[in-house]
């Protein structure tokens, strides 16, 4: 009788995703008559992949402890607005503004975590409330107006490329690598996963589940701040609607990437590959003029399918002697 497995080794899911990614990319390249591979198009492809990767990681971090963070999108927008405000209204140099945005994300994330621990309420409801608050705060910065023309240096960074790959994309990959290392190689990261995997066993080993919760939420907020900085740099202008369309991708990437909603496991590779696939689908939609809502519908269905598949696999493993 084997112990129930709530984890999968690096195996089928990541491999399937990788294969799908390669196949999809090649298919799209062919379908666009090689247009996809031209310098500008390819760059744009990866440039707009940066934020989905980071936002997917932001959600993944809280999924690891069995929580969810509904405020990731709104927080990204808020941090972006704050950074732009600091540069334009407070006249601060870009590096300070960037640090401030990250700090803001971290602070709000920690606040989320503290609220969840204090009220002992499902993280969903708490982050639903904070999401609403932050959505309002976003408008408080500059109303419905747009900020633009801030720091030329930052905007140049946003447009820059290294060996054909956009700088912001490389930043996103670097963040992904760091997050991956955090969970696989550092003591605090392992403790977080332990809390998510089996809170009771973790507690018996002296790990504070409350601390893990707050850390996870804090990290999630920090990553939302990173996404905000990338947005500010790459888009050239920001307004209060940023983040409204980030909630679904933030869940879709980790879930399709194989991360369990029950907590205890993460898959950076899976999340990144899933974000890649979603981006592919987006490009296909634009290329072939498909109604974008079909994309949403399909993604929603795939997410549900992924969860059902994961649950079914879990039940099968439980039953096998």
């Amino acid at each position, binding site marked *: 009788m084997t112990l129930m497995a709530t*984890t999968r080794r690096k195996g089928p899911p990541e491999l399937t995703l990788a294969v799908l990614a390669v196949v999809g990319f090649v298919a799209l390249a062919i379908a666009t008559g090689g247009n996809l591979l031209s310098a500008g198009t390819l760059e744009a492809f990866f440039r707009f992949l940066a934020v989905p990767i980071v936002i997917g990681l932001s959600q993944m971090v809280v999924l690891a402890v069995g929580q969810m963070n509904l405020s990731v999108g709104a927080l990204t927008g808020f941090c972006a607005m704050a950074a732009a405000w600091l540069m334009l209204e407070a006249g601060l140099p870009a590096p300070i503004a960037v640090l401030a945005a990250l700090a803001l994300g971290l602070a709000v994330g920690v606040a989320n975590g503290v609220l969840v621990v204090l009220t002992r309420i499902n993280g969903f409801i708490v982050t639903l409330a904070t999401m609403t608050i932050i959505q309002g705060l976003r408008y408080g910065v500059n109303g419905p107006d747009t900020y633009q023309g801030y720091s030329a240096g930052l905007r140049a960074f946003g447009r820059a490329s290294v060996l054909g790959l956009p700088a912001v994309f490389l930043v996103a990959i670097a963040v992904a690598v760091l997050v991956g290392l955090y969970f696989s190689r550092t*003591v605090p990261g392992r403790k977080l996963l*332990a809390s998510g995997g089996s809170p009771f066993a973790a507690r*018996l080993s002296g790990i504070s589940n409350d601390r893990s919760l707050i850390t996870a939420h804090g990290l999630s907020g920090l990553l939302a701040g990173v996404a905000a900085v990338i947005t500010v740099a790459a888009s050239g202008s920001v307004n209060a609607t940023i983040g409204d369309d980030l909630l679904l991708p933030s869940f879709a990437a980790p879930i399709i990437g194989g991360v369990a909603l029950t907590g205890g496991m993460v898959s950076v590779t899976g999340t990144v590959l899933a974000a890649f696939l979603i981006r592919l689908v987006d490009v296909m939609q634009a290329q072939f003029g498909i109604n974008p809502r079909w994309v949403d519908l399909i993604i929603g269905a795939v997410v549900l399918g992924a969860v059902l598949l994961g649950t079914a696999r879990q039940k099968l493993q439980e039953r096998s002697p």
Partner: protein
Amino acid sequence: MLVAENLVKTFPGVRALDNANLTLRPGSVHALLGENGAGKSTLVKLLTGVYRPDGGRITWDGEELHFGGPLDAQRAGIGVVHQERNLIPAFSVAENIVLHHLPGKAGWLDKRRMRTEARRCLDLLEVELDPDTPVSRLSVAQGQLVEIAKALSLDSKVLLLDEPTASLTGDEADRLYTVVRRLRDSGRAVVLVSHKLEEVFAVADTVTVLRDGRSVAEAEPLTGYTQSEIVDLMVGRAYASIELPERRVDENRPPALRLTGVSTAIGHRDISLAVRPGEILGLYGLVGAGRSELAKAVLGLERITAGTVEVHGEPARIKDVGEALRRYRLGYVTEDRKDEGLFLDQTVARNIAVTVWRRLSRAGLVPDRRERVLAETYVERLGIRVSSPQQLAGQLSGGNQQKVSLAKWLAAECDILIVDEPTVGIDVRTKAAFHELIAGLAAEGLALLLISSDLPETVVLADRIAVMSDLRIVGELDNDHDYPRMSQQIIRMIHAETPTAPPTTLSTAEG
């Protein structure tokens, strides 16, 4: 080295431990025996810091210990391996072993030190396991060994093993015994909590027997006893049998419930028994024998793979509890009243009426008054101590809760009742009242299948006794209510199994 003196622990309505004693010496394997409800798990919980004693003390080499929680007990050197696994499935063997102090260099996980420490602990047990194996790939037996290694890593001097071989095959159990002996030889004290006498006699040096919360044998060397004598101590004659009115069972009436050659998906094979109206059939067995699972199979909650179930002579394929209740008037008073029998945050009235709302309702609506009247009827009939039927079930004492759990089936006017461990965790006085109640139900004509691990209770109440062990019926007797004779016969029946017969695995252990 570790001494527990005069430990007392009370819960509302019941004195779980009543001056229990336990003495451990280094380098020994000590068995802790006792029937269900004797207080074993309470004692374990006190020793591991989950509960705090209401009286008495725990000392180590003379110094008194106070545990604020399980971590304190751990730090004091007391390790425990529970029946259920407490490992992180996603992590490796090594990581689980050192989870309490993950070695790190400036935050980075030191995998080499981790592996070294894991290897050290596994070597102490002489267990061959690759420390990098993910725990999810291990068998239950291997997982257990990892937990023992974990306890060693915590530098435990005392190791409590709670029913360790409940889900192991014969070979795996033997390997575990070797490990236990190795632990003993290394100077540690191992406490083996077990129901299996063969296992106890194979591995343990000394034994403490608990009965009704008291130690009736303390740290006695095992060589001084035979199995029968130990059993005598466990079941004892402290039970003051009450005078129950004579009941005559009409032998000519056809059975109300009959199982013929029933086998289930869980592993029961060829189960045959029958209960007549007005009769009490006691189904006795040890924990893990599969009796509750059999009852659930009859109710349609587990799959019956062979044989027939007949209710009043008609073949019945019951698909759920609702059908059992409404069509066949068959009720099941669950074993675990808190989790399965009661709605703790609902009122007593609702708990009692839940089975009969259909009958009470007019046009789909349940009149409050009818529900209240029904509840009051049964509160009075069963003597349930409540301030009002509107009191929440969770606030009642164990005995009264059990009465509520029973009341809902009586309200449903069942004529066949399966009663599963009705008096576990209930004080002696309420126990006696319950026995009168059950006997009274039989006198009124109900057919009762009494599942019990309490031998005196079974001998007092049952007209016939079926003995179950390892998912099979190993014997059936007519009960002459003579305790010494009956108990010896029954125990002999259970232990007639050869010790090397592989225990069948059950995914859920009976409580």
